[in-house]
């Protein structure tokens, strides 16, 4: 990923030159250079238009810096890092690069080391202390009492499945809130409290897998993660397609309905919702509803409502602002802002052929492994599968001072 990053910096200059050719109004020198400097400028000095006169959002876009979704409480109401803070964070985070931080070799969690620094992208620290710009404290608003109850019920169930494992015995962070008990929980025989979307320490069937394990990535809203996040926008008069590459062979696309028609009937529920767009001045506004109850974003499912605002802020910059709302989950709507930087069309470094399904040996492998462990245990030739942890991973990410 570092490689990808450094290349994209070089190609920004090339792309800037190419885009400059189709500018409808000459741009000023200030906005042509140093994309980072334009972060605060929400009013562009010039509006890029397609040949047919719509604002031009086209290209491959990514967030070239790392910004945590939520602000660390230590920054309180400080919206932007100081330059000194950013430099210090970059230094600390650079020290994490190249480390192969594994849990004890040969233990059941050793595989978590597969996701080492070669695999995960670490980008420069962004300008903001959080992607969340509203509420002003940069934090996800409190959950409603109902949503708190749901989350607690879910957590209890997952912890019950972990209670007899080394993870809880060693008081790993994955067992926070739970406690070790040598007797496996009877809750192994239960259904999860609601449709499962996350990892759990059981593999009775495919549905016990997390959505990404089943090649069913959660989807929207997409703010990027450790494995990269690219989007390609292609426009036509009255139509827009957005293809997302989110790494690990997972990707999806959205074809925004721009004809002014109302949302799909409520009975049609989709993984990526139903997206209806229109232009408000130079901003593409997309209203997204009709999410499937099988999706989950921070606890929000079929009632998730997004209002996205995409604005080209300069030759190489695209501002993305999304208001996230679900009155059944959060006590108020909240808003995230991200700035994307244009990537080279010619290098085409977006992986638009998601092959997760075609290469998903892990999902059946986990089930087969579990069945074998059960058979061995039944014959007295192996330990009770309930005392091993197949669910915990990404041990070590908590070391990133930005997270």
């Amino acid at each position, binding site marked *: 990923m570092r490689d990808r990053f450094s290349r994209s910096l070089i190609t920004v200059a090339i792309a800037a030159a190419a885009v400059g050719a189709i500018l409808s109004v000459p741009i000023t020198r200030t906005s042509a250079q140093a994309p980072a400097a334009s972060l605060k400028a929400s009013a562009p000095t010039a509006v890029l238009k397609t040949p047919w006169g719509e604002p031009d959002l086209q290209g491959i876009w990514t967030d070239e810096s790392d910004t945590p979704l939520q602000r660390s409480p230590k920054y309180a109401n400080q919206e932007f890092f100081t330059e000194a803070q950013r430099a210090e964070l970059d230094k600390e985070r650079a020290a994490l690069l190249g480390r192969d931080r594994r849990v004890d070799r040969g233990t059941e969690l050793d595989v978590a080391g597969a996701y080492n620094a070669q695999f995960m992208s670490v980008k420069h620290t962004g300008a903001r202390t959080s992607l969340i710009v509203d509420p002003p404290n940069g934090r996800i608003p409190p959950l409603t009492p109902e949503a708190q109850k749901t989350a607690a019920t879910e957590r209890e169930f997952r912890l019950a499945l972990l209670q007899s494992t080394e993870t809880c015995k060693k008081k790993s962070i994955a067992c926070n809130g739970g406690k070790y008990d040598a007797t496996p929980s009877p809750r192994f025989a239960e259904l999860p409290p609601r449709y499962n979307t996350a990892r759990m320490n059981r593999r009775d069937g495919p549905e016990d897998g997390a959505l990404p394990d089943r090649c069913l990535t959660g989807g929207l809203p997409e703010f990027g993660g450790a494995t990269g996040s690219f989007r390609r926008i292609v426009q*036509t008069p009255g139509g827009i*397609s957005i293809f997302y590459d989110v790494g690990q062979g997972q990707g999806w*696309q959205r074809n925004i309905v721009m*004809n002014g028609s109302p949302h799909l009937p409520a009975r049609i529920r989709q993984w990526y919702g139903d997206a209806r767009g229109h232009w408000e001045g130079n901003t593409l506004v997309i209203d997204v509803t009709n999410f499937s109850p099988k999706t989950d974003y921070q606890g929000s499912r079929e009632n998730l409502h997004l209002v996205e605002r995409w604005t080209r802020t300069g030759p190489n910059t695209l501002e993305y602002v999304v208001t996230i709302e679900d009155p059944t989950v959060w006590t108020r709507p909240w808003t995230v802002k991200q700035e994307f930087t244009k990537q080279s*069309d010619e290098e085409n470094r977006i992986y638009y*052929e998601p092959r997760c399904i075609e290469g998903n040996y892990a999902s059946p492998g986990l089930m087969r492994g579990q069945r074998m462990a059960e058979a061995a245990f039944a014959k007295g030739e192996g330990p009770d599968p309930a005392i091993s942890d197949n669910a915990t991973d990404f041990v070590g990410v908590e070391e990133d001072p930005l997270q």
Partner: protein
Amino acid sequence: MRGRFSRSMTTVAIAAAAVSALTSVSITRTSGQAPAAPAARPARVGGKPNFSGIWQANNEANWDLQAHAALPAAVTQPGIYPYDYARVPAAPVLALGAAAAVPGSLGVVQGDGQIPYKPEALLIKKENAEHWIDRDPELKCYLPGIPRAMYMPYPFQITQSTDKIHMAYEFSNTARTIHLDKVAGPPDDTWMGHSVGRWDGDTLVVDVTNFNDRSWFDRAGNFHSDALHLVERFSLMSPDIIRYEVTMEDPKVFTRPWRIAMPLYRRVEPNMQLLEFRCNEFVEEFMYGGLRKKQLVKHWEGDTIAVDITRKVPAGDKFYEWYGGDGGK
């Protein structure tokens, strides 16, 4: 007759929904928070014919590119006669009746209608056909490849710009980008190919290369190798019909280039949009059902699905009860 009655109720409901969909459009236009009036689709984009919109083939090519008579089922077994033409539906699809049958077709292969397989490749094609449910990537919801994605029985959407054309296929949320501008090749072989387009007058010509050898052309086992090279030609026969033509070249599998051609029709419904068809979820049972702790389908023997078909016909739905209104009494 309960069954029949409830069906007609459904029809009424669908008709009502359709009517309300039409009326609600006009309501929104007048009362909505004034979204800009939908842009009419111009006939040309950047001086070239505008292929943007939602399209779908309306033929049997996905069953078999070549001419074929209708078949009793997608999976058959020997009947009481030893003849190929007297085979009967087999267990995997038996309970579906005529819904599992294969429609006939005059084929889409141009010229003599033959696919010019090398002799050893023809053997593989025949074997593929015999092992259709084990081998066809479509059944596993794998990426369909090009050209198959163009004529599967699902709509696809073209978003045509001046430098890029995006094609979004409903099946398995698949996509491809056709590059009209300068672009580097892909880092690896692909299922969907690497598409580079150019204009030949008003015809869009697309060169597709960098394939792997895993996708198929149809459900009949027609296949290719990683040497496949396609030249696609898109031209408008009318504003709502594309003539789609592909030349297939693959010296590892075929003795000479060959060609398919078909019309693609615009989905002209005013409310048409692509919906999701994320079939990898749908095929989990098919692919992994045997790995469940408690099996849902009776029964699996290792990787083998032994389907014991139980079709219990409820009272009122026996076939003779459909005659004459009260035949069930």
